[in-house]
């Protein structure tokens, strides 16, 4: 079984934010109203953590980290879900099943990366965005938790297509939306267990680190940065 993971090269990232927009448009994440946004309910599956500015003026540099669900190998969110709406699949993707979710938000409280967002209300979406919703992804109702799924709908369609054409699933057929749109090709994605995949080769880099390693969640999203954290 493949084990899907991601490596983000922060030295190549040009902080354009295209991955944020691509994820939002690909997965029909709702655009919240002004009041809800001010209450901190803005919904972004992939966000850019502008964590810090290094150095002092004028030798300052911004550290911008694209952060998404880390798809941990030992997720802390699945341990507390009372109804098994979130669980880890065999291929390493932590699934989130919307019809099963009861909206208790224990998983949101447990996630150290604040990767999960909640549908507090269903705000009226702008008409032009409703007309270009992605048909492959469901629109979540009010009261469920959602998070990045490594675009699992793309995986299903790619696997089906490969089987129908009687061939193996090549590496480039299945990439999440954020990986596809990155202009500087800073995000690598693929099977971590396959020694020949691009992402495995990127893992041999000395600059590798993960966020909050000390918690033991074993995230599958690695970062490469030449600067010390």
């Amino acid at each position, binding site marked *: 079984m493949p084990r899907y993971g991601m490596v983000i090269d922060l030295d190549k990232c040009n902080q354009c934010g295209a991955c944020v*927009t691509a994820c939002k*448009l690909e997965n029909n994440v709702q655009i919240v109203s*002004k009041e809800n946004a001010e209450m901190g309910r803005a919904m972004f599956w992939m966000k850019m953590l502008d964590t810090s*500015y290094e150095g002092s003026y*004028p030798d300052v540099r911004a550290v911008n980290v694209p952060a998404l669900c880390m798809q941990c190998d030992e997720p802390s969110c699945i341990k507390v879900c009372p109804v098994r709406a979130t669980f880890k699949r065999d291929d390493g993707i932590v699934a989130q099943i919307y019809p099963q979710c009861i909206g208790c938000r224990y998983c949101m409280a447990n996630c150290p990366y604040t990767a999960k967002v909640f549908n507090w209300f269903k705000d*009226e979406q702008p008409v032009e*965005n409703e007309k270009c919703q992605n048909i492959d992804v469901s629109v979540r109702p009010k009261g469920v938790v959602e998070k990045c799924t490594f675009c699992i709908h793309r995986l299903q369609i790619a696997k089906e297509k490969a089987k129908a054409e009687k061939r193996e699933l090549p590496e480039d057929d299945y990439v999440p939306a954020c990986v596809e749109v990155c202009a500087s090709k800073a995000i690598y994605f693929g099977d971590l267990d396959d020694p020949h995949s691009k992402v495995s080769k990127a893992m041999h880099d000395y600059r590798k680190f993960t966020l909050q390693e000390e918690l033991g969640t074993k995230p599958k999203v690695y970062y490469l940065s030449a600067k010390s954290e």
Partner: protein
Amino acid sequence: MEINRRDFMKLIGGSLAGLAIGGAAGAVMKLPKSAEPILYSGPRIESWKLTACTACPGGCSLKVRLIDNLPIQAFGNPLSPINEGGICSMGLASVARLYHPDRLTGPMKNVNGKFVSISYDEAYKILKDELGKVIDNKKQDDVFIAVQTESKLRADMFKKFSEETGFSNLIIENFQASGAYPYNQVSGEAPDFIDFDKCDYLLNFGSQITEVSENPLYYTRKIIEHRSKGFKHTAVQPKLTPSISKSDDWVPLLPVFYADFALGIAYVLLKDEQYDKAFVEKYFTGFNDFKQYVLDNYFPDKVQELTGVPSDKILQIGRDFEKAAAPAAYFDETIFYNSNGTENALAVIALNALKGFGGFGKLKEEFFSKILENEKKKEEEITFANLKERLSGHKAIKALLISGSNFVYNSPDQAELKKQLSEIPLIVSFSSFVDETSSFAHLIIPDHDDFEKFDLLIDKSMGLPSATVLQPVVDHYYNTIDTSDVLISLMKDLKSGAKIPYDNYNDYIKQFANKIYSTHEGILMDQSKPTVIEKGLRKIGWQTESYSSFDDFWDGLLDAGGWWNPFADKTSYNPKIDFKTNFGKQNASMKKSLASLPNKKLRLNIFRKNLDYKGSMSLYPVLVEQFGLKWTVFYQLWAEINPDTASKYSLQDRSKVVLKTSRGKFPVFLVYNPSVIPGSIDVPFGLGHTNFGDNCGVNPLAYSDDLFDKSTGMPSFSETLVEIDSASSGSSAYTAQIITDEKKLSGTQNRSVYA
């Protein structure tokens, strides 16, 4: 039967439980309406089409995903050499513009302040008659045409129109042309591209090169690629933008001081005698005066006093520049967003000339410039400065045609402009929306959306000629018409006997493509990148593919999404420079006040984010929501301030503050940012539309001073002084200020998504 209290309670409890369970069971049987997919009953057949993005001057190639022939999403075309599959947020969001509810469905006429739908024939007749009258009275000089387009062929069509009809006051605002403008002033020709194969040092004056520039994704790739080969990039900008993440060094400097800084670097080169003496002798007229002037006035300590950049930094950058084999000091249109923009540009050109323009290149064959007709002399170029002069002067304008430009939003003197515009007897706009500028139009003939029209986007910034195809992904929904087609009909009707060898814009594009075809060079974009061996073979004359006829080539071109010539020869840029040195005298008092900051004032530095290009972001709710994501600020204007400055004025982080300028007060949400130049307050540009898309926030340019670059008329973004209005700060007064401002700013046609 007797019921005691306990039984009664049980009964009530049971009934309520029954009611609740029954209700819940009934209600869950149905899906909520928002969960219904839009293409519910269709077969959902997926198809892909290639087109190009026009959101910024980059012109990246897109592949659009259509479901049942309706465009749903856009991604980058992986086979295009320009973006290689990458795309930015603006391109991703642009598909929604097709379905925008505010899009005009057909020609509109302004009847007593309201826009009324009319037929195209009626609108065309009005336009033809009015312009015909002007031509008959020989008053063509009283008509202005303001065009903002990133497509050179479309600009060319307007030039042809202006030539045929005699309406010589044609303003073309094109990003690449603006960057070339100062070069044309001093030498008559501009460099075509930065030659990354030779260039090893890039000194970037103010350009947000990896965000919004001539070719942002290409530059990003090249900078990453060449960094490992010893390429260095130093950025001189007033703000730490994402472009700086791709640079090795950042010099925080306000744009008004660029000329002084550039000449300070030139001093280092001249003093060390490490400039390109051969080039200077051959091509630089007036060099000795220039040398004397710089050596007298720009030694590093003096520059430090003027600009605030430490003198050892100037020395370090100067030494890097002189040691580099082929350095390039780069600027683009953004250098004009300052009142001494032209002076800055000329100083940078002079700096380049000292090293022989080593980092730049020109296409050897002059392929496209020979093909594009009507390349008239650039010194006579009409710009917005001329329009402003005319509007405020005594000679009135009879008619104003506007295409693609929202200059009212992009100007500080909005109140005056609005008054002046309402005095013009005929304003015709070709915009698809009623924005701040087209709301003054008497007649609107909306253009097709960019996903519904044909065009070829020519690009030279890669060092190779390339033409990306813009083609319709859907038939046009509404009663719109391509502006170029209107111009062609007008030319035929207004000038009898005009020789126009094409019936519509589509034919014009085809004729241009025919010229490309007849050179028998280059490849289509869907063919793989050629190897070195193939390059050599082609030089001998071997071709991998050939098209039997032009129609074959045209079909192939539309399928592939574009054409490029990876084998084009390059040559170096060796212009004859003729300089008249009068640097430094402009803006002396402004520089002084910005450097020394009188009396509790801060510098207002308006910056552009990569989600917005000249105010278009407001159309896309996805981008408006993401605008302030970095600071977790949504749907309001924020301001960034250095913590040291903030403590001096006792301002808290994440507090609500009201800023006051000579034009009024506006509220901002203040955040701490240690990378802001001390004494400045950085405010983003892009919010605060009054009748275009979503209105939230404030347009900070509307509160800026009336300062413009003299030759191009572009507004100044960073020369206004503000002060904190402590009386109005604090939450209740701040909220009251927001409400008053939003009421003032809300127009009649805006739509608020968030009711």
